[in-house]
């Protein structure tokens, strides 16, 4: 057994929400390990428990040198415990007995020797023993079953699944919320409990009103034209998305269509919505030679919600991200590991990621005292 981290967490200068909480992240999924990241960001000591060859996410997706970017993102702030079947179980049992939360995959029992008041956080694709229990899943499969895919894209083209692993991130966040809520409840009852989070349920929970709309009136959405005041316009340098739910005059002025303001055919909200495709075509014609940032600024100055379709290169180099310190570099003995700093801020508290993802080591440098 080896326990590693280049940068062991140090005593925080400011308090964190989960100071003193010990989490064993025994999961192998994006969802489980993202829940662990949230624990680490909020001050818990999180140990990623891996097989000697490393958790599968180390090798999943794009990578520069060493571990994948996915692994780095999911596991920043954690330490790694490489556990072989032949290892002495003593230190592992000791950690288990002290753990407040164990995050793990489905298809197993809460580990023996876990503290009776610990939270057993179980993360999986679908509810155990449910109708999809033996299915194979991916982001695409989840988005197809959850309803979002059917409404994403254009009606005359195939539906689009989305990108990346957003369904799993939703599930990781759900798992974190559930486990922290259980810690809150434990303070009253003195007892732990099992919490479950599945991707299937988490994606379904994010559906806007699929079930209620059908229940209310028997209809459902499709990929037909978006039925609100939405426009996606191609400017000279980038696309812009705007939503003219209010402040119609602003939009007319930005795109040089002031004549529409006095035209009785566009006088009411309902009339404008009926003619919206025609209006968007006029806006598009005007927008084509304009710069996206200029369009956004003019719209926002007139209180119309608009944003550029920003590339990641745009964002990483943007003044907004620089001022807000959205990204940081975590000291790793080299040039530092890039990281997204926080998800939310709590005044007077440290809620930031504070150490790079842990390397996998084979040396048996057991540090049984860590985490006490």
């Amino acid at each position: 057994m080896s326990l590693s981290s280049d940068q062991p967490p140090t005593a925080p200068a400011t308090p964190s929400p989960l100071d003193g909480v010990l989490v064993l992240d025994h999961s192998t999924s994006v969802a489980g390990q993202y829940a662990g990241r949230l624990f680490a960001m909020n001050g818990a000591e999180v140990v990623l428990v891996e097989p000697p060859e490393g958790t599968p996410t180390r090798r999943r997706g794009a990578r520069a040198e060493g571990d994948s970017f996915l692994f780095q993102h999911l596991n920043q702030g954690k330490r790694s415990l490489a556990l072989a079947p032949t290892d002495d179980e003593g230190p592992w049992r000791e950690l288990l007995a002290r753990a407040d939360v164990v995050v793990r995959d489905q298809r197993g029992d809460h580990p023996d020797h876990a503290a009776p008041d610990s939270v057993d956080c179980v993360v999986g694709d679908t509810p155990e023993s449910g109708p999809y229990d033996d299915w194979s899943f991916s982001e695409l499969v989840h988005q197809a079953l959850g309803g979002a895919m059917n409404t994403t894209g254009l009606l005359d083209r195939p539906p689009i699944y989305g990108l990346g692993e957003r369904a799993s991130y939703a599930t990781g966040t759900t798992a974190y919320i559930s486990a922290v809520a259980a810690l809150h409840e434990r303070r009253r009852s003195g007892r732990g409990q099992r919490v479950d989070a599945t991707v299937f349920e988490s994606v379904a929970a994010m559906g806007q009103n699929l079930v209620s709309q059908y229940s209310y009136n028997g209809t459902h959405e499709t990929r037909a034209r978006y039925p609100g005041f939405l426009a996606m316009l191609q400017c000279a340098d980038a696309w812009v998305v705007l939503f003219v739910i209010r402040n119609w005059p602003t939009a007319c002025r930005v795109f040089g269509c002031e004549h529409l303001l006095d035209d009785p055919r566009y006088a009411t909200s309902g009339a404008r919505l009926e003619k919206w495709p025609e209006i968007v075509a006029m806006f598009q014609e005007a927008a084509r030679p304009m710069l996206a940032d200029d369009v956004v600024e003019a719209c926002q100055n007139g209180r119309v919600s608009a944003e550029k379709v920003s590339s990641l290169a745009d964002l990483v180099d943007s003044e907004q991200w620089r001022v807000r310190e959205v990204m940081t570099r975590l000291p790793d003995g080299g040039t530092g590991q890039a990281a997204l700093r926080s998800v939310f801020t709590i005044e007077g508290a440290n809620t930031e990621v504070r150490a790079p993802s842990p390397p996998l080591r084979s040396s048996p440098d057991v540090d049984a005292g860590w985490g006490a």
Partner: protein
Amino acid sequence: MSATSATGPLADIRVLEFTTAWAGPFAGRCLAYMGADVIKVEAPEHPDSWRGPRSGGAAGYYPELTPEPDPQNRNLLFNSQNLGKRSLALDLKRPGAMEIMRGLVRDADVILANFTPGVLDRLGIGRRDLAAVNDRIIVVEMPAFGPGGPSSGHQGMGKTMEPAAGMTALMAYPDGTPVLTGPAVMDPTGGLNAVAAIVSALELRERTGRGSSVMVPQVEAAASWIGEFVLEQAETGRTWRPHGNHVPYAAPHGAYPCQGEDQWVAIAVHDDEQWRALCAELGADELAADPAWFELPNRLADQDRLDEALSRLTATHDKTALAHRLQRAGVPAAPVLNGREIALSPEMRQAGMVAELDHPAVGTRTYSTLAFRHSRTPGGHRRAAPLFGEHNDDVLADLLGYDGDHIASLRANGVIADVPVADTDTPRATRTDNASTSAQPTTDEGSDDS
């Protein structure tokens, strides 16, 4: 506490919610699901925009496509995202209203708002003002952007926050046209991140003895959900170039047409064994035998031709039957389900993702539930969304001890109200789709600002 017998893990928590549209109400709904007593405070002159207008609302938002009567209590958008809450209709600008607020804040744990930054302070209910009343209060704001940057004052909505977060640039058809997620995923994303912040802030309070001011900048927070892409960009200067449903790790990977109009099966083939199984299930021996597609790298390099071939083969199949067959053969696949199919899905019901609730204005209807599962202290949606001001008397009498005369006086002076006195910003629309000739709603998701 709540009139229902809440048993969730947050059953000792009271939340005063000042939110509109989707992201903020979704966060409050999550807290109510986990047992919190959530009191939604609405301004009579500015009700939650998802209640819709006082008349003439889009038919698709309402039971049996009929807005009248009482549309602001019958709008399915509001009624879907405010389950389990109580409603207090309070005009904070009227004399006497702040006394009510201070009384409620004394015994509350969380103020939740999704106004633009600064609105809570202008209303006199920011953390600085309220700490004098209850230093343990946690005040949560969830603007589109955090303070300080050039975008900080931007109006954010679900559909515009997604491109600002970098997600839209990663979704496009092969011709480069960007794609927005159909349901504005940024709204529930922001809502979930807000709930994560709230349970964290509750834990911090146990350690410090004090409440706090919490900020959830929705766009910046959402970047964590594409963190691996952001890190790759930062470290290598490279960004994934989207091409429909194609991905760099599986082929074929996409939606393929099936029997019927707009019917699709999603298939994700991650390895060569799955490829051979897919070909076998589709009776496509010639594809399996084609050496050009034996191995994943070859298939990744030839996806357009692969998609064409596969589309011809799936077109005669029922999407659900085919997905089940493929799954039995070890191929990740699923029918691309629409709203009707999900509403009727036995799998959703078996998972507890559908609840039937009775509402005084719309009767018994079914609603989606949430994904928090606690074995010993289970949460749940136990009550439908509130009528506007439905719990005015309960809240004032039970929580503040006001007598009938006092409440009547407040009502007479317009401090509390039983009906909204203004329209909201929800647009009016009528449209039809292929599934039905019925009118369809506009979807004003994400108008999460003041």
